[in-house]
């Protein structure tokens, strides 16, 4: 038995629900219609950090946090949408560090993703270097900024003289790790090589708590390790060629001749492949990428 009061209210409730349902349906149509209007180009209305600092009325550090969050969201959304234009990344980072020069995470993030080539970053290592130099002046105790600066010179610009100088300068900081000196010496002596690159990317991976930076570093580490593996496979293939007068047909054949303990796999778990000319390659389905070939490959004996 439904109470009389509830019965009286039922039509009103029904009308309310119907109106709400209708408004939701209309809103969906409006959203579809508005979609093309909302796709406006991303713009920085105020591009000067100094002006924003003045407008913040003393709350510049809070505004820096807002801009930092916007930077992270901007980078993440561009990456998600597979867009290769990161033109706002530099200005957003500049504003962030002008508002809060002590926000070191912005320098680390910026140095990596401003310099990385598209589609991973803006491909602007010079801007990244300027950002780091600004960070070093504002945070003289942060020896890791020197590490990132040296790394940029080493990895992106292949300027080994400046890279070694940056590691040398950073090593003078009392808080700096001992390997900073070792790096300065290693780069001076050898320039770029895979082992040095692997070591430096590993330090970036270990020293960062930022998941985006770590994921990016892990990708580079996997790529360099694969390159080291492939060089080792090619050396064994060369040995096989010297001993047998022909290139091995496959890696399995090298294993059967005792030149390798087993079929090696890359970081993604896929076995390497051997080409007819004795060069190693990644499995076509492998997710490891090899776009980091900065070290000269060892000289290879001509095929017979």
């Amino acid at each position: 038995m439904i109470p009389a009061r509830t019965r009286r209210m039922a039509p009103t409730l029904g009308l309310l629900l119907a109106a709400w349902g209708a408004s939701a349906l209309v809103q969906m149509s409006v959203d579809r219609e508005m979609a093309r209007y909302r796709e406006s180009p991303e713009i920085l209305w105020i591009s000067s950090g100094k002006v924003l600092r003045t407008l913040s009325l003393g709350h510049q550090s809070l505004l820096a946090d807002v801009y930092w969050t916007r930077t992270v969201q901007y980078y993440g959304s561009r990456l998600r949408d597979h867009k290769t234009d990161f033109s706002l990344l530099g200005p957003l980072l500049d504003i962030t560090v002008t508002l809060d020069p002590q926000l070191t995470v912005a320098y680390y993030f910026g140095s990596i993703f401003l310099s990385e080539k598209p589609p991973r970053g803006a491909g602007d290592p010079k801007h990244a270097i300027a950002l780091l130099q600004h960070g070093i002046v504002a945070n003289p105790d942060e020896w890791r900024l020197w590490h990132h600066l040296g790394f940029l010179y080493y990895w992106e610009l292949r300027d080994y003289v400046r890279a070694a100088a940056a590691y040398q300068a950073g090593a003078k900081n009392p808080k700096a790790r001992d390997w900073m000196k070792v790096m300065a010496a290693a780069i001076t002596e050898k320039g770029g090589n895979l082992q040095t690159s692997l070591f430096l990317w590993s330090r970036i991976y270990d020293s960062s708590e930022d998941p985006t930076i770590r994921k990016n570093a892990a990708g580079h580490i996997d790529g360099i390790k694969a390159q080291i593996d492939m060089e080792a496979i090619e050396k064994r293939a060369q040995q096989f060629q010297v001993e047998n007068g022909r290139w091995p047909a496959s890696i399995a054949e090298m294993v059967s001749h005792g030149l390798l303990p087993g079929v090696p796999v890359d970081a993604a778990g896929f076995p390497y492949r051997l080409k007819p000319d004795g060069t190693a390659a990644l499995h076509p389905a492998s997710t490891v990428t090899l776009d980091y070939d900065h070290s000269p490959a060892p000289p290879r004996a001509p095929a017979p």
Partner: protein
Amino acid sequence: MIAAQTLAIARNTFREAVRDRVLYNLVAFAVILIASALLFGEISIGVEKTILINIGLSSISVFGLLIAIFLGIGLVHKEIDKRSLYSLLSKPIHRWQFVVGKFLGLNLTLLVNTLFMSMGLWGALYYLTRSFQPEDVYIWTAIYFILLELFLVTAVCLFFSCFSTPILSAIFTFLIYVVGSAASDVRDFGTLTKNPLLESLTTAIYYLLPNFSDFSVAGVVSHGLPVGSHLILLNTAYAVCYASMLVIAAVWIFSKRDLK
């Protein structure tokens, strides 16, 4: 005797302010905003604690400013409006005691409110980190600087409320706060023009305006960095000197005012 009377006025000002419901709403809103900082940190990278401290300190500062202005503008006007001032001044109390008592009472209110909002910040910080770090103690320096800033705002508000209506006092105080927050930019502007006359004028304005940007150290303490004791002393001295100047001016204006 004189000190006891002045303190009694301060106590009454505090009691009256505490009865105001707007005050509770503002404090509650500030605490909610501080707690919501925990969510803001989630959408950024590596700076959850920094964001929490910055939002917390900015909330304390902004809501403290609102409380100072809302309560400050009515300090004198409300007493005249309710005619309670006449019965008060008919007693052996000097006008300056009334002004100073009101000023101290409002500052006491702000101190208590700031402590409540600070508890909200510390609670949220503990919720986020589950432990306090030694460098967290520097947050107190920033809170102390916010109190000094509010001390100055109260003095500005009191000064205007001695000769103006509550709405105009609120507008004047807010404008002084805005210009005072950008005081160094005003001086820099004069320097950039390389015009000696304009340079002197902007420098004079710079020293005439209360420099609120001096009290902004949230960016330093949110990164766990200390604020030098010398700056703490200097900022304290500046706030005391400048507020004294305004309170003296307010007393002078109020003494000359015809209350009939």
